[in-house]
Each structure stands twice: as C-alpha cells, then as structure tokens.
C-alpha cells in the first residue's frame, strides 16, 4: 500500500491560506463585534454598535442603490451576452470572435474605465459630437451618476458573461430549435422553451460572475460615480481608511460576504433542483 502523500502535497497551501485567508477573515468577524478604538484599531469591549449602524437609514439607502445598480447591470449584461454568445457559437470563426472579445481585456482595467471618461466626460467624445451637430449648446453631464456607473460596470463584466454562455451554447444541439419550429413553435417560443432552459447552467454562471464583482465593486463608483451612486464598497473603504472605524468596515464586509454567499447558495440550489426536475421528467418519458 502506497503512503498517503495528500497531506504533504497540500501542506504549504494549507498553511498559506490559513494564515493569509482564514485567520484574517476570522479576525474581521471578531472585530465586527467589538467597540471602535479612538484612533483606529478596537477597544476590547463586546458591542453590537457596528451591526446597529447597518440599520442606519443612510446605509440602507446605499445598500438599496448598490442592489439597484447591480441588478440593472446584470440584466443589461445578460441581454447582450446571450445573443452575442449565440452568434459566436453558431459562427464558423468561433476562435477569432472569442479572441476579439478577449483582447480589450488585456488592457488594464483602470484604463478601460478611464476611456469612458474620455467618451462621456464634459469635454468628451459624445458631448463634442452633440455640440458640433447642434443638438445641444452646452455640454451635458453624462458622468458621475447611476447610469454612467451602470454603463461602465456592464462594460467591465460583459466578457465574464459571454465566455461561460458561449461554452454552454456551443454544446447545445441546434437541431432541437429546428425540431421545435417543425412542430409548430414560433421563433420566440423555440428560444424561450427550448434554447433558454437548455443553457440554464451557463446563464447561472454568467449571472454569478457578473453580479458578485458588481455588487462589491469599489473602483467604478469611485471614478465614474457621483452622489446617487455611492456603493457598499465605497462605504467600506471610507470607514476603514478615512473614518478609521474598523468594526464598522468589518461588519459591512461581513454583511456583504453573507449576502453574496446566500445569493450563491440560493441560486445554485435553485438551479440544481430545476435540472433534477428535468432529469426526472426525462426519466418519466423514457
């Protein structure tokens, strides 16, 4: 019998992740239950202040606007990602198209955000064109509001939705669509009742890949956003670095993490039960 080397192989990994991941996460969980120290740090007195602060109307407002921005962004992304992925999957030059989708994302992420300032800014491309065409006389402020944040977040995450969708759609048997049409389904029906249910796993992955980074995003609202688009990430950073309120920054991070985890679990469970249902249905038919 061979020796079990599993523990030896994984030892360095285990130590590293325990020290630099598990312990830091446990520390912020613990800190969130303490009182804030005068100049950063904490006072070792148990307190629920940091959690009470989460029910402050101002924070709740931020949470709602973060949710709103994330949901709208995800919807936009899915609307564009499904047809794009479908087109790529049916095209003859799949590799080339995928390559074209990936290239812009080799550029640094902040530069891609910055490019949107050049497009939407007061001195930007859109304003310049509109003024030259005589549509407007003075520049219009497109930046620093919810919609500019949504546009840029969509831009940043769209490929992360297209790629998983493409890989599921590519495996889809397109003759099923023709079969549906032959059996009298309309075009829309064949898409809603045959294509979409079959690529559900890809849609789930796409939503998770876009919703999570959007929900906890820090850079985009910071650079492109304004007063109406303060997001949870901005608040965390402010509490940590400016207000030096470690317990509050921790409690918000913990809340953010719990919400994300619940979202992931609900979503993947929901999806699993549906696929199981389908499988049972198929068994029944056979």
């Amino acid at each position: 019998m061979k020796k079990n080397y599993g523990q030896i192989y994984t030892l360095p990994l285990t130590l590293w992740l325990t020290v630099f991941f598990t312990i830091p996460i446990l520390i912020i969980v613990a800190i969130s239950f303490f009182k804030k120290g005068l100049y950063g740090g904490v006072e070792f007195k148990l307190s629920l202040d940091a959690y009470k602060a989460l029910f402050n109307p101002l924070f709740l407002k931020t949470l709602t606007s973060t949710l709103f921005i994330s949901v709208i962004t995800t919807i936009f992304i899915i609307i564009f990602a499904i047809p794009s992925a479908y087109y790529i999957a049916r095209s003859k030059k799949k590799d080339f198209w995928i390559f074209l989708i990936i290239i812009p994302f080799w550029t640094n992420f902040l530069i891609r955000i910055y490019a949107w300032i050049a497009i939407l800014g007061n001195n930007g491309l859109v304003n310049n064109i509109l003024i030259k065409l005589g549509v407007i006389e003075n520049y219009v402020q497109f930046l620093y509001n919810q919609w500019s944040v949504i546009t840029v977040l969509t831009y940043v995450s769209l490929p992360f939705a297209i790629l998983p969708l493409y890989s599921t759609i590519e495996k889809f048997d397109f003759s099923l669509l023709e079969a549906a049409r032959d059996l009298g389904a309309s075009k829309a029906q064949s898409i809603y009742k045959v294509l979409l249910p079959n690529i559900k796993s890809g849609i789930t992955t796409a939503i998770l890949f876009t919703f999570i980074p959007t929900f906890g995003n820090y850079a985009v609202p910071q650079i492109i956003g304004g007063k109406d688009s303060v997001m949870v990430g901005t608040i965390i950073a402010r509490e940590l670095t400016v207000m030096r309120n470690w317990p509050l920054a921790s409690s918000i991070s913990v809340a953010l993490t719990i919400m994300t985890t619940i979202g992931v679990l609900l979503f993947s469970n929901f999806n699993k039960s549906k696929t199981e249902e389908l499988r049972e249905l198929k068994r029944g038919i056979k």
Partner: protein
Amino acid sequence: MINNVKVSKNKKKNFKVSLIFFIITLLFFYLPLLVLIVSSFNESKTMNFTGVSLKWYKSLIFDSGSLWNSFLNSIIIAISSATVSTILGTLGAIGLYWYNFKLKRYIQIVSYLPLILPEITIGVALLIFFSWIKIKLGLFTIFLAHVTFNIPFVLLIVISRLSEFDYSIIEAAYDLGAREIDALLKVIIPMTIPGIISGFLIAITLSLDDFVITFFVSGPGSSTLPLHIYSMIRFGVSPVVNALSVALIIATSALTLSTRKINKYMFS
C-alpha cells in the same frame, strides 16, 4: 422541399437578430480603445482633434520616472507572486485531486472561497490583519496578498488538467520502482506542464491587473502600475494616460500574439 426552404430562411433571420446584438457588443468593446488610441496622438488636451503630435509619448518616456518605477514594482510582484502561487497551487492540486485525508474538506472550502468573496472583503481583511500583526505595508504585503488571491485560479486550472490524464501512468511509474519524488518530477509535472504554465500566466495577468486588494494593502512608496494609473486619473487627467494605455495595448497584444503557445494555453 418547401418546408426545408422555410426552415433555412427562419434560421437566417434568427441569426440576424443575434448578429445585431453581437455587433453592438463589439462596438461597445472597441469604442473606448479607439478613443484612447486617437486621443493619444492628439495635440490638444481635449477631445477636439487639433493635430497629430507625439508629445504625450515623449513625456511618457522621458518625464514619467515614478510611473516607470511603479511599472517595475508591478513586474516584480507579478513574477514573484505568480511563481509562489503556481508552486503552492500545483502541489495542492495534486494532493487534492488524488488523495483523501483529514483536512481535505477544509482546504477545498478555503481555496474556493476567495473566488466567490467580493474582492474588497479580502482587501479589508488583509489590511486589518497586517496592521494587527504590525507588518509594514509595502511591496512585501502586496506580494503576500497577490499570492493569496492567485492560488485558487492556479489550483482550478491545474486540477482541470489533472482530470484529463490517466492515473495508471503514475501507477506504472510506481510499479517500475519510482519513488514519490521521481513520480512527481518525472511523470506528474511534465504531464501537467501545460496546466501549470497557463496557471502561471493567469496569475501574472491577475497580479498585473489587480487594483482593489493592492489599494488596501499598499503602503507609502509602494505604488504599482494600477495604483499609479488610479492616482493619475483621480488627480487631474493627463493625456499621458492615453499614451500609456496605447503602449500597454500594443505590448500585451504583441506579447500574446507573438507567442502562439501562450495563446493556446490562454484559450484552453
């Protein structure tokens, strides 16, 4: 016959709707890049095109010392953190994929959790941890953080490579008298090398691109390229950023295109 014609007609129409969305998506993707490229050659600071000029490139090359310094920092951190995370991730993948042991469940959870947690949570946790144990924030803490968030990606990629190959080859090596270290160095690693390389490349790209976590764990004087770009954007936009972006686009595209192998790994 008639039916057939109808079907193919419908198929074409279906195709068209998706084509329109696809074209919009591509425009959406490339418009920002195009704007950057054009304005990097623009003499004027605004979006009004007044004339072709290379002055932003000149100032990028000759009077951007701190930018190049940040760039060097980024490269150092990318290579060192990718190397360490590739070693830890590869060994870990071998252990997790082929063996059962006590802590397996725990390792699986902590190595996938960083993938689903919002980046900012990891940044906050590490910043508080580093200040707690009083490590001075700087390049070293950035390195530690980058290794941590790179590990899950390397692990995933190497595991997917391991799942493709036949364990009986390793058993054959053992039967022929190989010790564990021989099996590892002469059989397992050579066969996993494509996975290891693509894991390493992904780790490098992630490290070069990371802003949020680096932002939290960096200290004074330890700027990386993304942090430098961020401060350039926040404190007065200079068209030097445009020139820099074009240089970066060209550099990354050239790098990836010239090495077809790298390309292949990136896609697989």
